[in-house]
């Protein structure tokens, strides 16, 4: 039949991969220079966590387990910041610990910045327990008493001399635990903190890991999941509406990168459609 048409279909099917790279590069760069607003659909598993923190009273304690390294920072830092800001703004106290060997730096970065913003004092408004290897044993021991694995906090002060720790013995004294993790630590939190000690637990994980943990949500072992950049953007959206973080202060990191996510996803899908249209049309022509 018509040669020009079948040439077009061939072109659609056999684009050089460099054209794909170029389009992705251009689209990402343009979106980074001139971002726009993308509506975010908030899922119930994220809203649950936000609402739980909302329902806490000033002075109550939330525990955050930070178990990720610099590689996962891009995905997990935003949710960590949003939750920490929400807590400090509401006067909720934070207990932090770390079961990933490269995690201590991550906790420090977040807590140093946010505690300054809200004028919060170490030992009074938050306590950072530090890092310990062997996550299973550490969590089991914390379920007995935080002082077993962590006789001192990260900065070397004995837990007994920290005012905030006065009435805090173990998981029974924290309202809930949120584990933000890029690896296997999450399973230990679920199996031991929730499984053994029945602690109320929610998790924030990388996009790739998200689907692995839905069964635990169904079975009620965890009460919420924040999944990757999208989950973080949902949380930031809620926190912004709640007035805890603000666009002006550049505190919506995940939300801001959502336009890049959206445009790249659209481009990828369009390329797939292009290839398939070419494929089917050329089959028809033949």
């Amino acid at each position: 039949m018509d040669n020009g048409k079948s040439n077009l279909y061939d072109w659609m099917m056999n684009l050089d991969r460099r054209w794909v790279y170029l389009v992705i590069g251009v689209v990402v760069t343009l979106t980074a220079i001139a971002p726009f607003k993308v509506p975010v659909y908030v899922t119930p598993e994220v809203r649950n966590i936000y609402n739980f923190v909302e329902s806490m009273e000033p002075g109550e304690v939330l525990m955050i387990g930070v178990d990720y390294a610099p590689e996962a920072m891009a995905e997990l830092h935003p949710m960590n910041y949003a939750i920490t800001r929400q807590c400090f703004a509401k006067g909720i106290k934070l207990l932090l610990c770390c079961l990933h060997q490269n995690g201590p730096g991550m906790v420090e970065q977040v807590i140093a910045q946010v505690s300054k913003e809200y004028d919060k004092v170490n030992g009074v408004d938050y306590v950072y327990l530090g890092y310990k290897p062997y996550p299973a044993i550490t969590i089991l021991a914390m379920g007995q008493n935080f002082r077993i694995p962590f006789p001192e906090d990260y900065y070397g002060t004995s837990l007994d001399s920290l005012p905030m720790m006065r009435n805090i013995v173990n998981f029974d004294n924290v309202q809930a635990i949120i584990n933000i993790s890029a690896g296997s630590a999450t399973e230990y939190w679920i199996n031991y903190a929730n499984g053994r000690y029945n602690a109320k637990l929610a998790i924030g994980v990388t996009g790739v890991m998200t689907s692995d943990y839905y069964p635990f949500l169904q079975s009620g072992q965890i009460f919420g999941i924040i999944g990757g950049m999208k989950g973080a953007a949902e949380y930031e959206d809620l926190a912004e509406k709640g007035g805890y973080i603000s666009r002006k202060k550049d505190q919506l990191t995940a939300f801001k990168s959502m336009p890049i996510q959206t445009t790249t996803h659209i481009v990828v899908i369009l390329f797939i459609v292009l290839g398939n249209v070419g494929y089917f049309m050329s089959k028809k022509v033949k």
Partner: protein
Amino acid sequence: MMSSFFLYSSSWFDFNRINVFIILGAFFIFVIYFIREAKAGKSLFVRRIAGLDAIEEAVGRATEMGKPILYISGIEDMDNLQTVASMIILGNVAEMVARYEVPLLVPICRPFVVPVAEEAVKQGYSKAGRPDAYNKNNVRYISDEQFAYTAGVNGIMLRDRPAANFMFGSFFAESLIMAETGFSTGAIQVAGTANIHQLPFFVVACDYTIIGEELFATSAYLSKEPKLLGSLKGSDLAKFLIMVSLIIGALLETFGITKFTSWFSVQ
């Protein structure tokens, strides 16, 4: 030791783990039984694993073209069983390659894998009657660091232009970088891993993909010793029992009987 506060007992057996013990014991018995059967000369039927044809075809094409063959064994160390399986496959690929005058390039990510890979290749070559064809410089350590290793492998793909790329072992994010670079050089690619997060990328970018357990099965099959196939039979019997207990467990749960399922819970 902090853990001594509460975790230990004076018992010599952890009864919380009795289910693991029993299941493991049964599995050991299956495997050893079938290996004995095979040794005694009983022929065991095992279906042909499609991945094997793919490997042979790829070797054939590379040798026809007179171009090198690249073998990548993942980025984990010898204590990972996928790496061990990969080394077994490597030995057999070396044997296939040895008959022809094409180099077999084996870039390696972990120092400990280097001696094993050297031995595997050497042994493969001498099995094929060509110990002289073995070149020590073709098995080389690149870097322990994931992306430095990936960059190094990319370099080999682009500069030595292998006609066949094999990727067997434990892979992470580098899987797609390697597979795409390999695709762009026009190499025929066969990959296999038991890391589920990376399989989508191998499935998409390679000509043939060996999925999960098939990796271990391929290594058993390639060893060509019938007794090693016994392990496949043993694991099949275990699989059959798992399927049966899955149905029983689900039915009992439906009628509210949880004793059976709770026996399987592990701590």
